């Protein structure tokens, strides 16, 4: 392993580790708030069945999540944790691209860019298509 490669691998390792830790902390905090406040921030907790059946359309986007965070809505905090989690592997792919760029492995820069494009397409194009 070269020094550059080792550096990038250490960076990837750290991003994965702290991405998961940050996500876990946010999800745990949001869950705690959910039961302390007795409401999701959008509707009262009620029964477990009601919480499962409730359509969570309010949470399917960054803008409503950001508004919910301003007033510390429990569901918005959990949601932020889940978004951080989703962003973790995406960040890993982005760092890998710079690693390959540094190694002048241009075929792999293209391969990594393709994977990144598929990930972004899934979130920004395919996702909205199936959105209720």
């Amino acid at each position, binding site marked *: 392993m070269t020094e550059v490669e080792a550096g990038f691998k*250490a960076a990837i390792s750290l991003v994965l*580790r702290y991405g998961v830790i940050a996500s876990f902390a946010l999800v745990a905090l949001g869950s705690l708030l959910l039961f302390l406040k007795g409401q999701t921030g959008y509707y009262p907790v009620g029964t477990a069945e009601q919480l499962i059946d409730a359509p969570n359309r309010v*949470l399917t986007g960054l803008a409503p999540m950001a508004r919910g965070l301003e007033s510390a809505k429990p569901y918005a905090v*959990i949601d932020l944790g889940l978004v951080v*989690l989703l962003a973790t592997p995406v960040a890993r792919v982005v760092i890998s691209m710079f690693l390959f760029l540094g190694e002048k492995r241009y075929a792999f820069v293209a*391969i990594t860019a393709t*994977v990144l494009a598929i990930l972004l397409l899934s979130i920004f194009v395919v996702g909205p298509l199936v959105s209720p």
Partner: protein
Amino acid sequence: MDPLEFFLLVLATAFMAGMLGSLLGLGGGVIMVPFLTIFLGVPPLLAIGASIVSVIATSSGSASAYVREGIANLRIGMFLEIATTTGAVIGAVLTIALARAGLEGVVYVTFGVVLLLSVIPLLGRLGEELPSFVTPDAISRRLELSGEYYDSALKERVDYQATRSPLGLAIMCAAGLISGLLGIGSGALKVLALDAGMRLPMKVSSTTSNFMIGVTAAASTGIFYLGGYINPFLAAPVMMGVLLGSVPGTRILVRTRNSSIRKAFIPIIVLLAVEMLVHGV
């Protein structure tokens, strides 16, 4: 049911699922989805959405260690992620379409069949520990799909070379499809693509597979998220429980060389598979 009771029940079960799943190398999702749907009556898509979130968490957590140790092959992983992410997008769209068309039975039956098949690698190894005389195909030669690692058990440096890349890509696409369709990591199939398909050493296969699971799961999670199938009330306890359970699970796995302990849990997996099949028919 009282929401706090329900939450704690799911959290505790997810902990057990995470421990058992990482012990068997199958991941927590294969146990969580049947539990949520069959025993708690959660709609399949919500169970799948909660499970796929936990898949990203456990994969990223363990991949963090594997990348640092340098056994997982980033280049081979990246190359094959083109296939797994494409498959995952198709799988997620397909499972949503099936559920919306009222064909949830198809999802249950597929889950049962995949779960039964995933027992096969637990019975015996299909790949080789250290493959020899591997001749690279054109793609793996051009992309230098090869590497080296220090084997701490053998106390020597191991050089390896991938082959049969098209076969690897094809199996990986199927692995991605199943991951997106069922909300599981489909690590067993990924390992199969790497060791039996592309003839990589066992250690490289298992760590690279783990490394790929997170990115594969991310490709379908965005779709489930925007589709409204990631319910915080379910995703939160499943993600936290499975992640916490995978820590002791992985530790036991590293310590136990004895595979008979793992085989003792096979009946549980078979039982869950049969339950899913019966539920779907």
